[in-house]
């Protein structure tokens, strides 16, 4: 199937694009356009050109990974187009086709998948305090480091229910609910998507000379994409 025909199958495509007239309002308000080479106007123009070669190049590039998903473009577009939503469509197919490993920012999806899906399926949260390690988050400052080192006492002090059964802040999510999340992942394609991200990443890691037979090899790949070294 032609690439443009493929991406049009995502229902979000229909919500995101109705004949962009290239006015540039989205670019004017876009934070990513201000702080990087990203331009949502150009992005939509490439998509509506229906040029498969240009689309493939886009899906293999850093470009689609620069958007910050603030969706300010949605508010401003006089035609109701949503470049930020089109980004979700393009990122989906970049991962389904394995193109994401061709760019430095695309390769970061491996780290995001491992951390976020690991947290969701393991603990029922996208973020957990244990994952915000001070050595990887110097910007969190000395107070967070103190919170991190003393979390049981401190979360209890402010009325949370950290990792304990029952209701409340940061409660332990029961095994039945976690099993339901896993079943939803299996049913709706998230498990398959995660496997694709991992398989394509291992293949790229091998190409780049990482020892993927060794657990430490993929751990090093994880840290290198997370820290932007490759």
């Amino acid at each position, binding site marked *: 199937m032609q690439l443009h025909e493929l991406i049009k199958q*995502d*229902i*979000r495509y229909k*919500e995101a694009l109705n004949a962009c007239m290239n006015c540039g309002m989205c670019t004017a308000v876009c*934070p*990513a356009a*201000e*702080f*990087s080479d990203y331009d949502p106007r150009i992005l939509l123009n490439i998509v509506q050109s229906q040029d498969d070669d240009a689309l493939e190049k886009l899906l293999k590039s850093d470009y689609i990974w620069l958007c*910050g*998903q*603030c*969706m*300010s473009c949605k*508010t401003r577009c006089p035609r109701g187009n949503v470049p930020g939503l089109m980004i*979700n469509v393009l*990122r*989906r197919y970049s991962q389904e086709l394995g193109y994401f490993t061709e760019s430095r*920012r695309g390769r*970061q*999806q491996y*780290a*995001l998948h491992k*951390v*976020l899906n690991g947290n*969701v399926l393991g603990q*029922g*949260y*996208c*973020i957990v*305090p244990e994952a915000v390690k001070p050595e*990887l988050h110097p910007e*969190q*400052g*000395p*107070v967070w*480091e103190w919170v991190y080192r*003393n979390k049981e006492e*401190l979360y*209890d*002090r*402010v*009325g949370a229910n950290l990792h304990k059964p029952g*209701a*409340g*802040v*940061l409660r332990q*999510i029961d095994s039945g*609910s976690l099993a*339901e*999340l896993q*079943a*939803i*992942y299996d*049913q*709706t*394609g998230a498990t398959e998507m995660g496997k694709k991200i991992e398989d394509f990443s291992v293949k790229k890691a091998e190409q780049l000379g990482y020892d993927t037979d060794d657990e430490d090899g993929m751990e090093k790949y994880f840290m290198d*994409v997370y*820290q*932007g070294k490759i």
Partner: protein
Amino acid sequence: MQNLYTVSKDYRKEIADDKYYYARSCIRQNFFPGSEVTFLNILKKDLDRDVFDDPKHTTCTGIAYHSDVIPFDTIQTVVARHFALMSENGYENFIASCVTSFGMYIEITETWKHFPEQLELIREHLKKATGREFMIPKNIAHTSDIVYKYRMRIAEQMKYPLVNAKTGQPLKVVDHIGCHYAKMFPDKGEGGAEFTQVLQGMIKAWGGATVDYPERRHCCGFGFRQYLVQANRGYSVSNSKKKFESMQPYEPDLIVANCPGCAMFMDRWQYTLNEMQGTRYGASDTMIPVLTYEEMAGLVLGYDPWDMGLQMHQVDVTPLLDKMGVKYDPDGKYRTRTGRPIGSYTPQQSR
């Protein structure tokens, strides 16, 4: 210009009165756990509302979705499970603590209106995966909408207004709404995306003055993958820096944030920018304290700052407490409720 700040009828949202199913926030629970405790205390004790805190409720997966590591069908089905839990417990009004979640709940229910076949597909997914069935909520609101709705009742019980206790002048408060509250669906946010009222209404009702600075509506810079991946954090801090520089000439006393992620970034990036370049953005070379709206409401009502977790902020809030004339125990800041020190040292806050 006053008319610009009244709520247009196009942007006045319906907010349910009572009987809420509460959906917690991943980020708020991690970084501002006392805020969610305070919210429930205010609703139950001060406002006598019925709110259900469900242990079976999980993440909505919004951060994973906006980081593009799960399909759209997955988050729709997780959200459908939340709606099923709400119905099973006898509730119809859904309230979300997280702005990202709130945006997703709206986006998903709007998608189902535009694509009814998608709604049927998600019903099938949920049934197959969990055996559950769901009803779409009668009303969906962000938790700040509820505080906004009852702002005048809170004002009636107010102990410490948003006023400088020494000068009698209103505190100058910067509000930060968070992009996904109203930018995607302006009619779902009180006041819309341009003149959002949800925090402004609280500030005015409680005696403060709002600061209308040029970059008021600019993103904090979270950007999901742009913060979560260490290599990309320059994007995140650059956006907050732009906001701080824009608000600096107005010398705000306080920043209050709607979105839990934004509150965390406005707090932490002030510390980071000071470490990077020695800058501070408040009056007289000080940092600007940052509160969540639950913390602001709690302070106004006379809640203990350390019970609410204000010692977990990087930017020290005690200058603000002193300005408001709040009575607090300085020795209790880093101690348990029984007075035992938490940890072997006290952390260095920023001022």
